[in-house]
């Protein structure tokens, strides 16, 4: 039986996608997760970690970003912990859907909007100078067909 959880540390100075993508793929394969679910998890991590690295730090130092992915009772949980500036995902601005695309000056907010739609539950807390984000996604064949 494959381990039900995997933890790893990246830093803001690394090419994080190349760090976490193989780990998500490996975890997904070990637990026979649907392709679509693996994509949703990879995309969520990508958008959030990119956000942290792009906007999170006021200095030029190296900072750790700790990730744990776990599976319990058909629910995948991703925990991301970082010491970047406070970022409450629930306060992030949504894309300007009411402005026609050709007139939109900013395309910001789409990454976070995608994340909110890829997972079932999000919890955020700020604790001891760290952002702790929990994403939960229910895995079921019906909502994520294996060949999807």
């Amino acid at each position, binding site marked *: 039986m494959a381990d039900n959880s995997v933890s790893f540390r990246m830093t803001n100075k690394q090419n994080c996608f190349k760090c976490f993508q193989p780990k998500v793929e490996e975890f997904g394969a070990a637990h026979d997760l649907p392709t679509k679910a693996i994509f949703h998890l990879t995309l969520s991590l990508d958008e959030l970690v990119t956000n942290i690295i792009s906007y999170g730090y006021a200095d030029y130092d190296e900072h750790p970003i700790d990730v744990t992915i776990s599976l319990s009772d058909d629910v995948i949980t991703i925990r991301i912990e970082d010491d970047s500036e406070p970022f409450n995902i629930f306060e992030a601005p949504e894309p300007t859907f009411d402005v026609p695309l050709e007139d939109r000056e900013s395309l910001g907010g789409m*990454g976070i909007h995608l994340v909110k739609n890829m997972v079932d539950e999000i919890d955020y807390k700020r604790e001891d100078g760290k952002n702790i984000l929990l994403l939960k996604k229910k895995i079921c064949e019906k909502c994520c067909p294996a060949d999807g």
Partner: protein
Amino acid sequence: MAMTESKEKGIIILAVDGNLDADGTLAMEEKVLALLEGGATQLLFDFSGLDYINSSGLRVLVLSYQRLKKVSGKVAICGVKDYIQEVFEVSGYDKIFSLYAERADALSGM
């Protein structure tokens, strides 16, 4: 990520295979900008071999849409896998881009 460029019926086709991660997206953006600066007005992205895209990748598509809209050009996308199609739907971009199942459909529909 690998890109293959071709031209058919005056339409420039950019086939993108593999992952549009940060590096892949940057390479695609450079390619698209070069095509637009070279005067391309009809652009078809063939994503039948595409396994991954994120919001940065979508942004490059929107950029080409915005640029081509100004010169009455066209941009379309074909062959997206269904889990990538969902990203277009969630972002609302499925209403803006013409999405075709097959390259041939796109070439005759554009």
